[in-house]
Protein backbone atom coordinates (compact mmCIF):
# COMPACT_ATOMS: atom_id res chain seq x y z
CA UNK A 1 0.00 0.00 0.00
CA UNK A 2 1.42 3.42 -0.86
CA UNK A 3 2.36 5.75 1.98
CA UNK A 4 -0.05 8.07 3.69
CA UNK A 5 1.20 11.63 3.44
CA UNK A 6 0.59 13.50 6.69
CA UNK A 7 1.36 17.20 6.99
CA UNK A 8 2.01 18.59 10.46
CA UNK A 9 1.08 22.25 10.73
CA UNK A 10 -0.10 24.81 13.27
CA UNK A 11 -0.50 28.39 12.10
CA UNK A 12 1.30 29.82 15.08
CA UNK A 13 5.02 29.24 15.37
CA UNK A 14 6.77 27.72 18.34
CA UNK A 15 4.03 25.31 19.37
CA UNK A 16 6.16 22.25 18.67
CA UNK A 17 5.56 21.27 15.05
CA UNK A 18 9.09 20.11 14.40
CA UNK A 19 9.40 18.30 17.73
CA UNK A 20 6.08 16.59 17.05
CA UNK A 21 7.07 15.61 13.51
CA UNK A 22 10.39 14.18 14.72
CA UNK A 23 8.88 12.28 17.64
CA UNK A 24 5.90 10.88 15.79
CA UNK A 25 8.20 9.81 12.93
CA UNK A 26 10.48 8.04 15.39
CA UNK A 27 7.52 6.43 17.16
CA UNK A 28 6.07 5.19 13.86
CA UNK A 29 9.44 3.75 12.89
CA UNK A 30 9.64 2.06 16.32
CA UNK A 31 6.36 0.35 15.43
CA UNK A 32 8.15 -1.07 12.40
CA UNK A 33 6.66 1.34 9.86
CA UNK A 34 8.73 2.65 7.00
CA UNK A 35 8.78 6.40 7.55
CA UNK A 36 10.10 9.31 5.53
CA UNK A 37 10.02 12.71 7.15
CA UNK A 38 10.31 15.73 4.99
CA UNK A 39 11.27 19.17 6.19
CA UNK A 40 9.21 21.62 4.14
CA UNK A 41 10.28 24.63 6.18
CA UNK A 42 12.66 25.75 3.45
CA UNK A 43 15.21 28.27 4.66
CA UNK A 44 14.66 27.48 8.34
CA UNK A 45 15.88 23.94 8.39
CA UNK A 46 15.73 22.25 11.78
CA UNK A 47 14.06 18.85 11.61
CA UNK A 48 17.51 17.38 10.94
CA UNK A 49 18.85 19.00 14.12
CA UNK A 50 16.03 17.63 16.26
CA UNK A 51 16.63 14.16 14.80
CA UNK A 52 20.38 14.51 15.33
CA UNK A 53 21.17 14.02 11.65
CA UNK A 54 22.47 17.45 10.73
CA UNK A 55 26.05 16.33 10.17
CA UNK A 56 24.99 13.76 7.57
CA UNK A 57 23.36 16.17 5.14
CA UNK A 58 24.86 16.29 1.68
CA UNK A 59 21.86 17.09 -0.52
CA UNK A 60 18.53 18.66 0.38
CA UNK A 61 14.98 18.83 -0.95
CA UNK A 62 15.75 21.74 -3.28
CA UNK A 63 18.64 19.79 -4.81
CA UNK A 64 16.21 16.97 -5.59
CA UNK A 65 13.61 19.29 -7.07
CA UNK A 66 16.13 21.15 -9.18
CA UNK A 67 17.64 17.89 -10.42
CA UNK A 68 21.09 18.16 -8.86
CA UNK A 69 20.74 14.73 -7.28
CA UNK A 70 18.50 11.71 -7.14
CA UNK A 71 15.90 11.38 -4.43
CA UNK A 72 17.76 8.45 -2.89
CA UNK A 73 20.97 10.44 -2.64
CA UNK A 74 19.23 13.09 -0.56
CA UNK A 75 17.39 10.74 1.79
CA UNK A 76 19.30 10.40 5.06
CA UNK A 77 18.94 7.13 6.88
CA UNK A 78 18.47 7.50 10.62
CA UNK A 79 21.43 6.45 12.76
CA UNK A 80 19.21 4.43 15.13
CA UNK A 81 16.28 3.13 13.11
CA UNK A 82 16.74 1.44 9.79
CA UNK A 83 13.23 2.27 8.56
CA UNK A 84 13.40 6.03 9.25
CA UNK A 85 14.58 8.47 6.60
CA UNK A 86 14.87 12.24 6.50
CA UNK A 87 14.70 14.53 3.52
CA UNK A 88 16.16 17.79 4.86
CA UNK A 89 15.13 21.30 3.89
CA UNK A 90 17.50 23.68 2.21
CA UNK A 91 19.03 26.27 4.47
CA UNK A 92 20.27 28.57 1.74
CA UNK A 93 17.06 29.07 -0.20
CA UNK A 94 13.61 30.31 0.73
CA UNK A 95 10.01 29.18 0.35
CA UNK A 96 9.81 30.19 -3.31
CA UNK A 97 12.29 27.42 -4.22
CA UNK A 98 9.63 24.74 -3.75
CA UNK A 99 6.24 24.97 -5.43
CA UNK A 100 3.23 22.93 -4.35
CA UNK A 101 3.43 20.81 -7.51
CA UNK A 102 7.11 20.03 -6.80
CA UNK A 103 6.22 18.68 -3.39
CA UNK A 104 3.32 16.66 -4.80
CA UNK A 105 5.65 15.03 -7.31
CA UNK A 106 8.25 14.36 -4.64
CA UNK A 107 5.67 12.70 -2.39
CA UNK A 108 4.41 10.59 -5.25
CA UNK A 109 7.98 9.35 -5.74
CA UNK A 110 8.28 8.55 -2.02
CA UNK A 111 4.91 6.88 -1.63
CA UNK A 112 5.65 3.42 -3.05
CA UNK A 113 8.61 2.89 -0.74
CA UNK A 114 7.18 4.00 2.57
CA UNK A 115 4.21 3.52 4.89
CA UNK A 116 4.19 7.12 6.10
CA UNK A 117 5.50 10.40 4.74
CA UNK A 118 5.44 13.09 7.41
CA UNK A 119 5.83 16.70 6.31
CA UNK A 120 6.96 19.36 8.76
CA UNK A 121 5.35 22.56 7.60
CA UNK A 122 6.42 26.17 7.97
CA UNK A 123 4.55 28.34 10.46
CA UNK A 124 2.04 30.82 9.12
CA UNK A 125 -0.63 30.54 6.48
CA UNK A 126 1.36 31.77 3.51
CA UNK A 127 3.27 30.13 0.71
CA UNK A 128 5.23 27.69 2.88
CA UNK A 129 2.08 26.44 4.57
CA UNK A 130 0.24 26.02 1.27
CA UNK A 131 3.13 24.12 -0.27
CA UNK A 132 3.39 21.78 2.71
CA UNK A 133 -0.33 21.04 2.67
CA UNK A 134 -0.61 20.46 -1.10
CA UNK A 135 0.51 16.80 -1.14
CA UNK A 136 -1.20 15.88 2.15
CA UNK A 137 -3.63 12.98 2.43
CA UNK A 138 -4.18 13.94 6.05
CA UNK A 139 -3.39 16.98 8.15
CA UNK A 140 -2.42 17.05 11.80
CA UNK A 141 -2.63 20.38 13.59
CA UNK A 142 -0.45 21.02 16.60
CA UNK A 143 -1.58 23.58 19.13
CA UNK A 144 -0.77 24.61 22.68
CA UNK A 145 -3.48 25.11 25.27
CA UNK A 146 -3.33 28.89 25.02
CA UNK A 147 -5.76 31.30 23.44
CA UNK A 148 -3.45 32.69 20.75
CA UNK A 149 -2.34 29.26 19.51
CA UNK A 150 -5.93 27.99 19.45
CA UNK A 151 -7.06 31.04 17.50
CA UNK A 152 -4.40 30.41 14.85
CA UNK A 153 -5.20 26.70 14.79
CA UNK A 154 -8.85 27.57 14.16
CA UNK A 155 -7.82 29.73 11.21
CA UNK A 156 -5.77 26.85 9.83
CA UNK A 157 -8.62 24.36 10.31
CA UNK A 158 -10.77 26.68 8.20
CA UNK A 159 -8.11 26.88 5.47
CA UNK A 160 -7.67 23.09 5.49
CA UNK A 161 -11.42 22.66 5.10
CA UNK A 162 -11.46 25.14 2.22
CA UNK A 163 -8.61 23.24 0.55
CA UNK A 164 -10.66 20.06 1.03
CA UNK A 165 -7.79 18.41 2.90
CA UNK A 166 -9.87 17.91 6.01
CA UNK A 167 -10.95 16.95 8.45
CA UNK A 168 -7.73 17.80 10.19
CA UNK A 169 -6.87 16.08 13.46
CA UNK A 170 -5.48 17.74 16.55
CA UNK A 171 -2.52 17.35 18.86
CA UNK A 172 -2.60 19.42 22.04
CA UNK A 173 1.03 19.92 22.94
CA UNK A 174 2.68 21.13 26.13
CA UNK A 175 -0.31 20.71 28.41
CA UNK A 176 0.47 21.51 32.03
CA UNK A 177 -1.90 19.39 34.12
CA UNK A 178 -1.22 21.37 37.29
CA UNK A 179 -2.18 24.67 35.67
CA UNK A 180 -5.29 23.14 34.15
CA UNK A 181 -6.42 21.83 37.51
CA UNK A 182 -6.04 25.24 39.05
CA UNK A 183 -8.07 26.66 36.18
CA UNK A 184 -5.14 28.72 34.93
CA UNK A 185 -4.75 26.95 31.59
CA UNK A 186 -7.16 25.91 28.89
CA UNK A 187 -8.10 22.27 29.23
CA UNK A 188 -8.15 19.93 26.26
CA UNK A 189 -11.94 20.08 26.35
CA UNK A 190 -11.81 23.91 26.06
CA UNK A 191 -9.59 23.60 23.01
CA UNK A 192 -11.86 21.00 21.42
CA UNK A 193 -14.89 23.14 22.24
CA UNK A 194 -13.58 25.83 19.89
CA UNK A 195 -11.91 23.74 17.21
CA UNK A 196 -14.44 20.90 17.07
CA UNK A 197 -12.11 18.49 15.29
CA UNK A 198 -10.94 15.01 16.25
CA UNK A 199 -8.19 14.73 18.83
CA UNK A 200 -5.29 12.43 18.08
CA UNK A 201 -3.05 13.16 21.02
CA UNK A 202 -2.32 15.13 24.17
CA UNK A 203 1.32 15.70 25.03
CA UNK A 204 2.18 16.96 28.51
CA UNK A 205 4.78 19.64 29.11
CA UNK A 206 8.02 17.83 29.75
CA UNK A 207 11.46 19.35 30.24
CA UNK A 208 12.91 16.10 29.00
CA UNK A 209 11.61 16.93 25.52
CA UNK A 210 13.63 20.13 25.45
CA UNK A 211 16.76 18.32 26.59
CA UNK A 212 16.35 15.46 24.14
CA UNK A 213 15.58 17.92 21.32
CA UNK A 214 18.78 19.78 21.99
CA UNK A 215 20.70 16.51 21.98
CA UNK A 216 19.14 15.35 18.74
CA UNK A 217 17.68 12.31 20.43
CA UNK A 218 13.86 12.55 20.32
CA UNK A 219 11.93 11.77 23.51
CA UNK A 220 9.99 9.03 21.73
CA UNK A 221 13.07 6.82 22.19
CA UNK A 222 12.88 7.26 25.96
CA UNK A 223 10.74 4.57 27.57
CA UNK A 224 10.40 6.57 30.77
CA UNK A 225 9.44 9.93 29.25
CA UNK A 226 5.76 10.88 29.65
CA UNK A 227 5.83 13.01 26.53
CA UNK A 228 7.61 10.20 24.72
CA UNK A 229 4.79 7.85 25.72
CA UNK A 230 2.26 10.34 24.36
CA UNK A 231 4.10 10.53 21.04
CA UNK A 232 4.20 6.73 20.85
CA UNK A 233 0.46 6.65 21.51
CA UNK A 234 -0.10 9.17 18.71
CA UNK A 235 1.86 6.91 16.37
CA UNK A 236 -0.31 3.94 17.36
CA UNK A 237 -3.48 5.97 16.77
CA UNK A 238 -2.17 7.07 13.37
CA UNK A 239 -1.61 3.42 12.48
CA UNK A 240 -5.23 2.72 13.29
CA UNK A 241 -5.02 1.39 16.83
CA UNK A 242 -7.63 2.45 19.34
CA UNK A 243 -5.56 3.82 22.20
CA UNK A 244 -7.40 5.54 25.05
CA UNK A 245 -6.34 9.10 25.78
CA UNK A 246 -4.01 9.61 28.70
CA UNK A 247 -5.42 11.34 31.75
CA UNK A 248 -2.68 13.40 33.26
CA UNK A 249 -4.98 14.51 36.02
CA UNK A 250 -4.70 11.31 37.99
CA UNK A 251 -0.95 11.24 37.74
CA UNK A 252 -0.64 14.79 38.90
CA UNK A 253 -3.52 14.42 41.36
CA UNK A 254 -1.32 13.82 44.34
CA UNK A 255 1.14 16.41 43.22
CA UNK A 256 -1.63 18.86 42.50
CA UNK A 257 -3.18 18.34 45.91
CA UNK A 258 0.22 18.71 47.51
CA UNK A 259 1.03 21.91 45.69
CA UNK A 260 -2.42 23.32 46.46
CA UNK A 261 -1.79 22.54 50.10
CA UNK A 262 1.51 24.36 49.95
CA UNK A 263 -0.10 27.32 48.26
CA UNK A 264 -2.80 27.47 50.87
CA UNK A 265 -0.16 27.30 53.59
CA UNK A 266 1.86 30.08 52.13
CA UNK A 267 -1.20 32.25 51.64
CA UNK A 268 -2.12 31.67 55.29
CA UNK A 269 1.31 32.70 56.30
CA UNK A 270 1.35 35.79 54.14
CA UNK A 271 -2.22 36.65 55.13
Amino acid at each position, binding site marked *: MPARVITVTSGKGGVGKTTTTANVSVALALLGKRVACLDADIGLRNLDVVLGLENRIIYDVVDVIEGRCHLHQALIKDKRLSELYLLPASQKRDKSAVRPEDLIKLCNDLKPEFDFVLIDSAAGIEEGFRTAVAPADEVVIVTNPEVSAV*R*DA*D*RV*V*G*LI*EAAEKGPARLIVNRLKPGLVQRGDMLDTSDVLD*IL*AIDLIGIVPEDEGVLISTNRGNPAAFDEKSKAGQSFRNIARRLSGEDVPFETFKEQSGLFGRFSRMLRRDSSHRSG
Partner: protein
Amino acid sequence: MKSPDDGIIIKGSREGLLITLGPGAWHIVLSTLETRLTATPDFFKGARVALLVGPRKLVEADVRAARDLLARYDVVLWGLMSDDEETQHVAAVLGLDAQLPQRERPEPRPQPVEPAISIEPPQPIEPATSHEPIEASIADDPEIGLVARRTLRSGQQLRHPGSIAVLGDVNPGAEVVAGGDIIVWGKLRGTVHAGAMGNDNAIVCALNLAPTQLRIAQYIARSPEGRRRKPTPEVARVRNGQIVAESWEVK
Protein backbone atom coordinates in the same frame (compact mmCIF):
# COMPACT_ATOMS: atom_id res chain seq x y z
CA MET B 1 -34.60 46.47 4.42
CA LYS B 2 -35.73 47.66 1.04
CA SER B 3 -33.04 47.86 -1.60
CA PRO B 4 -33.24 50.71 -4.08
CA ASP B 5 -34.26 49.77 -7.59
CA ASP B 6 -31.07 50.91 -9.30
CA GLY B 7 -30.14 47.75 -11.18
CA ILE B 8 -27.55 46.72 -8.59
CA ILE B 9 -28.07 43.37 -6.88
CA ILE B 10 -25.93 42.39 -3.90
CA LYS B 11 -25.68 38.86 -2.65
CA GLY B 12 -23.62 37.14 0.01
CA SER B 13 -21.55 34.07 -0.70
CA ARG B 14 -18.77 32.05 0.84
CA GLU B 15 -16.23 33.98 -1.24
CA GLY B 16 -17.58 37.39 -0.28
CA LEU B 17 -20.17 39.70 -1.74
CA LEU B 18 -21.33 39.22 -5.30
CA ILE B 19 -22.48 42.45 -6.89
CA THR B 20 -24.43 42.23 -10.11
CA LEU B 21 -24.30 45.44 -12.12
CA GLY B 22 -27.18 46.22 -14.42
CA PRO B 23 -26.99 47.56 -17.98
CA GLY B 24 -25.94 51.10 -18.82
CA ALA B 25 -22.82 53.13 -19.44
CA TRP B 26 -19.94 52.03 -17.21
CA HIS B 27 -19.32 55.41 -15.56
CA ILE B 28 -23.00 55.75 -14.69
CA VAL B 29 -23.12 52.24 -13.29
CA LEU B 30 -20.05 53.01 -11.20
CA SER B 31 -21.54 56.20 -9.84
CA THR B 32 -24.68 54.26 -8.91
CA LEU B 33 -22.44 51.77 -7.16
CA GLU B 34 -20.71 54.62 -5.34
CA THR B 35 -24.10 55.88 -4.16
CA ARG B 36 -24.68 52.47 -2.61
CA LEU B 37 -21.21 52.43 -1.03
CA THR B 38 -21.73 55.91 0.43
CA ALA B 39 -25.17 55.03 1.77
CA THR B 40 -23.97 52.09 3.90
CA PRO B 41 -20.20 52.28 4.34
CA ASP B 42 -20.34 50.10 7.48
CA PHE B 43 -21.76 47.23 5.54
CA PHE B 44 -19.08 47.33 2.87
CA LYS B 45 -16.02 48.15 4.96
CA GLY B 46 -13.53 45.30 4.79
CA ALA B 47 -15.61 43.27 2.33
CA ARG B 48 -14.34 41.16 -0.55
CA VAL B 49 -16.32 41.70 -3.68
CA ALA B 50 -16.78 40.13 -7.09
CA LEU B 51 -18.52 42.11 -9.83
CA LEU B 52 -20.88 40.33 -12.18
CA VAL B 53 -21.00 42.47 -15.29
CA GLY B 54 -22.92 40.31 -17.73
CA PRO B 55 -22.11 40.51 -21.44
CA ARG B 56 -20.53 43.96 -21.19
CA LYS B 57 -17.16 44.66 -22.86
CA LEU B 58 -14.68 46.30 -20.54
CA VAL B 59 -11.15 47.53 -21.05
CA GLU B 60 -8.45 47.51 -18.43
CA ALA B 61 -9.02 51.15 -17.45
CA ASP B 62 -12.72 50.43 -16.77
CA VAL B 63 -11.89 47.63 -14.39
CA ARG B 64 -9.14 49.64 -12.72
CA ALA B 65 -11.65 52.45 -12.16
CA ALA B 66 -14.01 49.99 -10.45
CA ARG B 67 -11.21 48.55 -8.36
CA ASP B 68 -10.02 51.99 -7.26
CA LEU B 69 -13.56 53.08 -6.44
CA LEU B 70 -14.07 50.02 -4.24
CA ALA B 71 -10.65 50.46 -2.63
CA ARG B 72 -11.67 53.97 -1.50
CA TYR B 73 -14.40 52.31 0.58
CA ASP B 74 -12.00 49.67 1.91
CA VAL B 75 -13.47 47.00 -0.33
CA VAL B 76 -11.25 44.47 -2.09
CA LEU B 77 -12.16 43.47 -5.63
CA TRP B 78 -11.22 39.84 -6.18
CA GLY B 79 -13.33 38.73 -9.09
CA LEU B 80 -14.89 39.93 -12.32
CA MET B 81 -17.37 37.62 -13.93
CA SER B 82 -18.36 38.35 -17.48
CA ASP B 83 -19.82 36.52 -20.45
CA ASP B 84 -17.53 38.47 -22.73
CA GLU B 85 -14.22 36.87 -23.64
CA GLU B 86 -12.26 40.11 -23.86
CA THR B 87 -13.52 41.22 -20.48
CA GLN B 88 -12.49 37.85 -19.06
CA HIS B 89 -9.05 38.45 -20.51
CA VAL B 90 -8.87 41.86 -18.84
CA ALA B 91 -9.82 40.23 -15.53
CA ALA B 92 -6.98 37.74 -15.96
CA VAL B 93 -4.49 40.51 -16.76
CA LEU B 94 -5.43 42.32 -13.57
CA GLY B 95 -5.14 39.13 -11.55
CA LEU B 96 -8.85 38.88 -10.83
CA ASP B 97 -10.73 35.62 -10.80
CA ALA B 98 -12.93 35.30 -13.86
CA GLN B 99 -15.23 32.71 -12.40
CA LEU B 100 -16.61 31.61 -9.09
CA PRO B 101 -14.75 28.70 -7.56
CA GLN B 102 -16.28 25.44 -8.70
CA ARG B 103 -17.76 23.50 -5.87
CA GLU B 104 -18.17 19.82 -6.08
CA ARG B 105 -21.83 19.14 -6.13
CA PRO B 106 -22.95 15.68 -5.26
CA GLU B 107 -24.16 13.86 -8.31
CA PRO B 108 -27.90 13.87 -8.54
CA ARG B 109 -29.30 10.58 -7.41
CA PRO B 110 -29.20 8.16 -10.32
CA GLN B 111 -32.61 7.33 -11.62
CA PRO B 112 -33.57 3.78 -10.85
CA VAL B 113 -33.28 1.59 -13.90
CA GLU B 114 -36.66 0.98 -15.42
CA PRO B 115 -37.64 -2.54 -14.42
CA ALA B 116 -39.09 -4.87 -17.01
CA ILE B 117 -42.40 -4.75 -15.26
CA SER B 118 -43.34 -1.15 -14.85
CA ILE B 119 -43.75 -0.32 -11.21
CA GLU B 120 -43.65 3.09 -9.61
CA PRO B 121 -39.97 3.98 -9.12
CA PRO B 122 -39.26 4.81 -5.50
CA GLN B 123 -39.23 8.53 -4.86
CA PRO B 124 -36.06 9.89 -3.34
CA ILE B 125 -36.78 10.98 0.20
CA GLU B 126 -35.19 14.38 -0.29
CA PRO B 127 -34.87 16.33 -3.47
CA ALA B 128 -31.28 16.37 -4.69
CA THR B 129 -31.13 20.15 -4.38
CA SER B 130 -31.24 19.95 -0.61
CA HIS B 131 -27.66 18.61 -0.66
CA GLU B 132 -26.32 21.60 -2.49
CA PRO B 133 -23.98 23.91 -0.66
CA ILE B 134 -25.67 26.68 1.25
CA GLU B 135 -24.72 29.45 -1.09
CA ALA B 136 -26.63 27.89 -3.91
CA SER B 137 -29.80 28.66 -2.05
CA ILE B 138 -29.26 32.40 -1.99
CA ALA B 139 -32.10 34.13 -3.69
CA ASP B 140 -31.59 37.19 -5.79
CA ASP B 141 -33.75 39.14 -3.41
CA PRO B 142 -31.57 40.55 -0.64
CA GLU B 143 -34.56 40.47 1.68
CA ILE B 144 -34.34 36.72 1.65
CA GLY B 145 -31.90 35.39 4.17
CA LEU B 146 -28.65 33.52 3.85
CA VAL B 147 -28.32 30.23 5.66
CA ALA B 148 -24.79 29.05 6.47
CA ARG B 149 -24.82 25.46 7.51
CA ARG B 150 -21.31 25.31 8.97
CA THR B 151 -19.08 26.69 11.68
CA LEU B 152 -17.35 29.96 10.88
CA ARG B 153 -13.75 29.80 11.96
CA SER B 154 -11.21 32.49 12.76
CA GLY B 155 -10.56 34.66 9.71
CA GLN B 156 -13.74 33.65 7.93
CA GLN B 157 -16.32 36.23 7.06
CA LEU B 158 -19.96 36.11 6.09
CA ARG B 159 -21.68 39.15 4.68
CA HIS B 160 -25.15 39.49 3.25
CA PRO B 161 -27.52 42.40 2.73
CA GLY B 162 -30.44 40.42 4.16
CA SER B 163 -30.56 38.36 7.32
CA ILE B 164 -28.08 35.60 8.11
CA ALA B 165 -28.66 32.35 9.95
CA VAL B 166 -25.64 30.30 10.95
CA LEU B 167 -26.31 26.68 11.79
CA GLY B 168 -23.06 26.13 13.66
CA ASP B 169 -20.72 28.19 15.78
CA VAL B 170 -19.20 31.58 15.09
CA ASN B 171 -15.71 31.22 16.52
CA PRO B 172 -13.53 34.01 17.90
CA GLY B 173 -11.91 35.84 15.00
CA ALA B 174 -14.78 35.17 12.61
CA GLU B 175 -17.07 37.97 11.45
CA VAL B 176 -20.71 38.06 10.40
CA VAL B 177 -22.15 41.21 8.86
CA ALA B 178 -25.80 41.37 7.88
CA GLY B 179 -28.16 44.06 6.69
CA GLY B 180 -30.88 42.34 8.68
CA ASP B 181 -30.93 40.00 11.68
CA ILE B 182 -28.31 37.46 12.68
CA ILE B 183 -29.32 34.16 14.16
CA VAL B 184 -26.70 31.72 15.38
CA TRP B 185 -27.88 28.23 16.14
CA GLY B 186 -24.74 27.51 18.14
CA LYS B 187 -22.13 29.41 20.09
CA LEU B 188 -21.57 33.00 19.04
CA ARG B 189 -18.07 34.03 20.10
CA GLY B 190 -16.87 36.07 17.15
CA THR B 191 -17.80 39.55 15.98
CA VAL B 192 -21.24 40.25 14.52
CA HIS B 193 -22.87 43.30 13.03
CA ALA B 194 -26.61 43.17 12.45
CA GLY B 195 -28.50 45.95 10.72
CA ALA B 196 -25.20 47.01 9.18
CA MET B 197 -27.01 49.24 6.71
CA GLY B 198 -28.47 51.29 9.52
CA ASN B 199 -31.45 49.22 10.65
CA ASP B 200 -31.48 49.52 14.45
CA ASN B 201 -34.50 47.24 14.70
CA ALA B 202 -32.25 44.35 13.77
CA ILE B 203 -31.61 41.66 16.38
CA VAL B 204 -28.89 39.15 17.10
CA CYS B 205 -29.76 35.90 18.76
CA ALA B 206 -27.75 32.83 19.61
CA LEU B 207 -27.99 29.67 21.64
CA ASN B 208 -24.94 30.92 23.49
CA LEU B 209 -24.48 34.64 23.09
CA ALA B 210 -20.88 35.46 23.99
CA PRO B 211 -19.60 37.60 21.11
CA THR B 212 -16.21 39.31 21.08
CA GLN B 213 -18.10 42.35 19.90
CA LEU B 214 -21.71 42.83 18.93
CA ARG B 215 -22.93 45.68 16.77
CA ILE B 216 -26.41 46.63 15.75
CA ALA B 217 -26.61 49.51 13.26
CA GLN B 218 -24.37 52.21 14.81
CA TYR B 219 -24.36 50.73 18.33
CA ILE B 220 -21.49 48.67 19.69
CA ALA B 221 -21.39 46.37 22.71
CA ARG B 222 -19.01 43.87 24.24
CA SER B 223 -19.84 40.77 26.24
CA PRO B 224 -19.56 41.24 30.00
CA GLU B 225 -16.21 40.15 31.41
CA GLY B 226 -15.83 37.05 33.47
CA ARG B 227 -17.17 33.55 33.27
CA ARG B 228 -20.82 33.17 32.52
CA ARG B 229 -23.23 30.86 34.12
CA LYS B 230 -24.90 28.11 32.20
CA PRO B 231 -25.43 29.50 28.71
CA THR B 232 -29.01 30.08 27.67
CA PRO B 233 -30.41 31.30 24.37
CA GLU B 234 -30.40 35.07 24.30
CA VAL B 235 -31.42 37.85 22.00
CA ALA B 236 -29.69 41.22 21.71
CA ARG B 237 -31.50 44.30 20.50
CA VAL B 238 -31.33 48.07 20.78
CA ARG B 239 -33.46 49.55 23.56
CA ASN B 240 -33.33 53.23 24.47
CA GLY B 241 -30.14 53.83 22.60
CA GLN B 242 -28.13 50.88 23.84
CA ILE B 243 -27.72 47.21 23.09
CA VAL B 244 -29.27 44.90 25.66
CA ALA B 245 -29.23 41.11 25.79
CA GLU B 246 -32.25 39.31 27.15
CA SER B 247 -32.91 35.66 27.60
CA TRP B 248 -34.99 34.15 24.87
CA GLU B 249 -38.36 33.41 26.36
CA VAL B 250 -41.65 32.76 24.76
CA LYS B 251 -43.98 35.22 26.32
